[in-house]
């Protein structure tokens, strides 16, 4: 029931009365309506009583705003597009980066958690704690409230029917409790499990539990890992996450507290600690130092100088590898957002200057200043709302796109969702910019004197400069990607594929059993159709994961041992069969190729030979008989993404390794045959068959992803800057129509005019480029760490971006 009904009821009653007084119905009704008066006007007054005045005016302002925006569609589309790109990109990227940099870790009191250990250049970037030291620290206590350790993840196989490759890690019994986890079914590990002769128990991940056991009760169930049956003690919670962020399917107990079999070597553990409540990371580092110094005794003498103590909060350490890329992305979209805002500001500024006359007229016919402010405000609000809405849509689409093109293993991309805080932030910032630049100038008293324009050129120049910074960053990343793709691998990858398998020690306990198995496979694969050449190798370039030795331990016959405290870094040792060089096209620079009879021979890479300064002598290395150097092979990229290869040596394999690559030159159609050979001989073995090209290109996926993202942002930024420049030049030129007319009347040719206008654009562009190059140079230092084989002082960046 509304006002309309009330009015109708009133009129009907009067009409009825009129009828009773003797009027015909039609006339009675008309007379009643006449008596009531102007219904629309009365209705407006009645409604005005119940509606707050600001709301009513807002409605009117909104209508004006929409009408005004529709009147100049080019402006509206450009502004909304700029906002969409800026808000969309920044929201999407922040949503994704936030998960890496700022999200809460799933651990209880995460601020107390610390990742500690020793670091040494030869151990790469990861911290380690030597088994004996850890055991002693656990027994005797440390400055920490508690410490725990894990062996780190490793491949293992679920060796039941339908075998699967899994990731297993051994952990100390207090591992879960230290991080504040509790199994969702069954029990946690306890001290008993670490004793000698204790039953072998495991905790399985939530995913494995769901996929393999259908989420059923696992009490008393067992699982066969690497051909050893293990009882399932419990199930890990769904949010369980290893502190190293590695994927894990099975946790086993670290058996380090019992009696050790002699000559078994020491495990290198990854250790974590929980701080006592009142202590800081720095304090604990200082207090760990004496324990660390004592522990150095267990470190071989040659290393001691290079070993350092490392103590980091878990969060800092976790994001160490991805934080630079994350900050880079964040910086890039920050720039993009700035460009977008500058763009919108410029558009609004131009528009508001053009509307000065309209505003003056409105003011003259009685619109209050407050009223005018409100109207401009509403217009900006409408614009920002439209930009914000389409920006959020754009962010949503971008996140989806990231997920599609991102390589596997990008940290937590899959659970990235639109972050509303940042969406609101981006919309607010652009709205404020819109108001500042759109509403403020419109309110200035229209002055007849022509002032020199400074704000708009400044905005244009800053847009160009920002876009240039973005573009240079993207160019550097792209250049690095091209370098990486073009850098010679040192081998031929075409029509080569590999089959990789790892033998479980439970079923292949001794070297002869492994050699026998590999020989069987070798014979059958060699005979498979489509296989031209076959070699075996313990590892494959260009991946870094290899067997290696320490440079300073290599001795050269007739020369004193290279002494000193330095390790000299690592030397890759690759155990291969002779066709390896031929299949991969690795040239022999000197000497002869490897033969099946060369039991005591070694082939050096050029780099290693150069470092050893030798050409054809015998060299020895620890605990093995000396070997004759029979040849020197070309360098092969063998350190993953790094462009300069590590020194490397090749020896003949005795086929006793647990891990083996079968390197095949031949028709890719032979791949299923090779797989079938393995299945026939051992159906429970997991085999990875892959072309070498695919292996190499997989390695480049992550840098490519970064380049695509940054390149996309740079292009968007450039586009925005170009639109901005065009818009301002066009507007200024229109404003100067009169002046141009006079100039032409006085004899200027159209060429002069074009020169004048483009000269102005050129000056702005030059200023933008100049400032941008300085910014790019400053930021280039910063992204150096993400680059492969690019020196950052790239002067061509400037010329390229024009």
């Amino acid at each position, binding site marked *: *029931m509304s006002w309309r009904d*009330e009015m109708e*009821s*009133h009129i009907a009653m009067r009409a009825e009365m009129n009828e009773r007084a003797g009027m015909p119905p039609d006339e009675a009704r008309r007379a009643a309506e006449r008596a009531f*008066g*102007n219904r629309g006007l*009365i209705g407006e*007054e*009645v409604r005005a*009583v119940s509606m707050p005045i600001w709301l009513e005016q807002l409605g009117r302002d909104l209508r004006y705003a929409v009408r005004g925006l529709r009147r100049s569609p080019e402006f509206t589309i450009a502004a909304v597009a700029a906002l969409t790109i800026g808000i969309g990109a920044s929201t999407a990227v922040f949503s994704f980066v936030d998960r890496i940099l700022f999200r809460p870790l799933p651990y209880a009191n995460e601020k107390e958690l610390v990742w500690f250990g020793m670091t040494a250049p030869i151990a790469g970037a990861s911290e380690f704690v030597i088994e004996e030291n850890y055991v002693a620290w656990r027994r005797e206590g440390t400055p920490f409230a508690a410490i725990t350790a894990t062996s780190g993840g490793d491949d293992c196989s679920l060796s039941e029917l339908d075998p699967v490759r899994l990731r297993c890690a051994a952990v100390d019994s207090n591992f879960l409790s230290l991080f504040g986890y509790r199994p969702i079914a069954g029990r946690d590990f306890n001290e008993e499990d670490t004793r000698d002769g204790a039953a072998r128990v495991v905790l399985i991940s939530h995913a494995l539990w769901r996929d393999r056991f259908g989420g059923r009760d696992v009490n008393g169930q067992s699982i066969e890992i690497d051909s050893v049956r293990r009882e399932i003690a419990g199930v890990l919670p769904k949010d369980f996450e290893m502190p190293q962020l590695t994927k894990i399917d099975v946790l086993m107990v670290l058996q380090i507290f019992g009696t050790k079999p002699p000559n078994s070597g020491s495990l290198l553990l990854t250790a974590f600690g929980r701080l006592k409540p009142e202590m800081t990371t720095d304090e604990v580092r200082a207090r760990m130092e004496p324990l660390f110094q004592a522990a150095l005794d267990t470190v071989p003498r040659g290393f001691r100088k290079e070993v350092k103590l490392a103590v980091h909060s878990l969060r800092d350490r976790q994001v160490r590898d991805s934080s630079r890329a994350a900050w880079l992305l964040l910086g890039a979209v920050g720039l993009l957002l700035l460009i977008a805002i500058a763009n919108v500001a410029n558009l609004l500024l131009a528009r508001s200057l053009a509307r000065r006359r309209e505003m003056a007229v409105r003011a003259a016919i009685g619109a209050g200043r407050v009223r005018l402010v409100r109207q401009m405000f509403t217009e900006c609000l409408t614009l920002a709302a439209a930009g914000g809405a389409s920006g959020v849509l754009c962010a949503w689409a971008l996140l989806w796109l990231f997920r599609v093109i991102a390589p596997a293993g990008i940290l937590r991309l899959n659970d990235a969702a639109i972050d509303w805080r940042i969406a609101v932030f981006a919309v607010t910032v652009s709205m404020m910019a819109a108001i500042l630049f759109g509403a403020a100038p419109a309110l200035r008293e229209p002055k007849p004197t022509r002032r020199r324009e400074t704000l708009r050129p400044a905005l244009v120049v800053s847009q160009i400069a920002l876009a240039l910074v973005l573009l240079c960053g993207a160019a550097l990343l792209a250049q690095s990607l091209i370098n990486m793709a073009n850098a010679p691998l040192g081998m031929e990858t075409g029509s080569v594929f590999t089959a990789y398998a790892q033998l479980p020690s439970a079923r292949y306990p001794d070297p002869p059993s492994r050699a026998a198995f590999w020989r069987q496979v070798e014979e059958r694969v060699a005979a498979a159709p489509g296989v031209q050449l076959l070699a075996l190798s313990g590892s494959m370039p260009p991946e870094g994961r290899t067997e290696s030795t320490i440079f300073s331990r290599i001795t050269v016959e007739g020369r004193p041992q290279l002494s000193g405290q330095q390790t000299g870094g690592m030397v890759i040792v690759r155990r291969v069969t002779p066709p390896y060089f031929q299949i991969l096209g690795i040239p022999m620079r000197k000497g002869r190729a490897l033969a099946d009879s060369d039991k005591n021979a070694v082939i050096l890479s050029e780099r290693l030979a150069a470092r050893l300064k030798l050409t054809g002598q015998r060299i020895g290395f620890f605990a093995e008989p000396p070997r004759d150097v029979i040849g020197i092979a070309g360098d092969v990229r063998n350190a993953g993404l790094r462009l300069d290869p590590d020194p490397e040596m090749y020896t003949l394999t005795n086929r006793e390794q647990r891990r083996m690559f079968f390197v095949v030159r031949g028709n890719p159609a032979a791949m299923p045959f090779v797989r079938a050979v393995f299945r026939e001989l051992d159906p429970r073995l997991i085999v990875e068959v892959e072309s070498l090209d695919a292996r190499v290109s997989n390695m480049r996926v992550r840098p490519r992803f970064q380049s695509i993202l940054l390149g996309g942002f740079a292009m968007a930024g450039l586009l925005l800057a170009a639109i901005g420049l065009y818009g301002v030049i066009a507007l200024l030129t229109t404003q100067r129509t009169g002046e141009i007319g006079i100039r032409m009347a006085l004899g200027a040719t159209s060429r002069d005019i074009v020169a004048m206008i483009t000269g102005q654009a050129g000056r702005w562009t030059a200023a933008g480029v100049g400032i941008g190059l300085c910014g790019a140079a400053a930021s280039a230092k910063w992204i150096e760490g993400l680059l492969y084989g690019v020196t950052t002082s790239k002067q061509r960046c400037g010329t390229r971006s024009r």
Partner: protein
Amino acid sequence: MAPLELLILKTLKAGPNHGFGITLHVQEASGGLLGVEEGSLYPALHRLEKDGALSAEWSTTQAGRRARLYRLTAAGHKRLAKAEDQWNTVSKGMAKLMRFA
């Protein structure tokens, strides 16, 4: 206090009524001397309702027609009393002034 409001409040003191009823009552009770225009009546009714002096609800009249019935609230009674006082003062003053002139 506008005389219109006084007329409305006084009318409703006799009992709940609808807009048309109010116009009729004012006309009849004043012996045809006073009349209320719809254009002022309804905005005034709605304003009084918003101020809390009146409450309104839809109901059916004796003639079986749907109408919005207005009713005095407690605040409305107070307002009426005050308005009557004011009016009496004003009219006395006016009467004296007229005689003097």
